């Protein structure tokens, strides 16, 4: 079971997939590709772990416990 969190105006939208459920797995992978196409950045971490354990990922890892999507940045 993995969770993808996409930062948005609701705080974040959570997408949950189950390794044993091909449908949820495929849906999560599609959402990953959609977010990546928007130049967002994905970080994987063990569930609830501090930022030191977060790793930048560039392709969908179905074994990740938690993936957090953040937006591209710009000078303010």
């Amino acid at each position, binding site marked *: 079971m993995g969770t993808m*969190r996409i*930062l*948005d*105006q*609701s*705080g*974040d939208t959570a997408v949950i997939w189950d390794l044993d459920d091909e449908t949820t797995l495929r849906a999560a992978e599609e959402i990953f590709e959609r977010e990546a196409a928007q130049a967002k*950045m994905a*970080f994987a*971490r063990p569930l*609830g*772990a*501090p*930022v*030191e*354990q*977060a*790793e*930048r990922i560039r392709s969908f890892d179905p074994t990740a416990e938690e993936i*957090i999507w*953040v*937006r*591209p*940045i*710009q*000078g*303010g």
Partner: protein
Amino acid sequence: MIPSFRLVENIPEWGALVEVVGGEHHGARVLLVPAARVLPRAATGTARLGPPVQRPRRLVDDRIPSHERRRAEANRRAEANRRAEALLRSLLDDDQRADWRGRRAFWVPTPFGAVELGRLSDLRFDDHGGRHLVLCVLPLRSCELPDADIWTNLLLVLRGEPRRFFDVANYRLPGGPWQAGPVPLHPVATVSG
């Protein structure tokens, strides 16, 4: 019984709203529209009564009282802030979490120095050479995000893509004018983790 109509309201350029009195549909309201309004010109030999009326578009659902809309929006924002706050706190270590709780700001180590997150457009940066700068970096469309999400966003970029963070940052010396990035950097330390 032969039903009759009771006039409820005359609606200019539309017709008459009437109520059926008697019969099977007693009490039903019906809009009576002049034939010239609905039939093609060829069928009646007359012009339409007037141009079609542009109905106002409903931009907000004004059937819901405004105070209820405001309360729903306030609830939505409160829930968004709660979620964002929980996610940010989960990413912080104990010292950062205590800092965040106490003064709504915390320091983040990077290979180039420490950045303080917590004040929009006023991010302190102390590099390893003892230089102090003020930075401004934001996520795209940051105004959509709860504040805590903005810091989660920048915290993770500092963790995974620190060079990108300093490449896009606008910066200035304290009290000096803003300059466009990239920030001149002097990497002298490695951040473990």
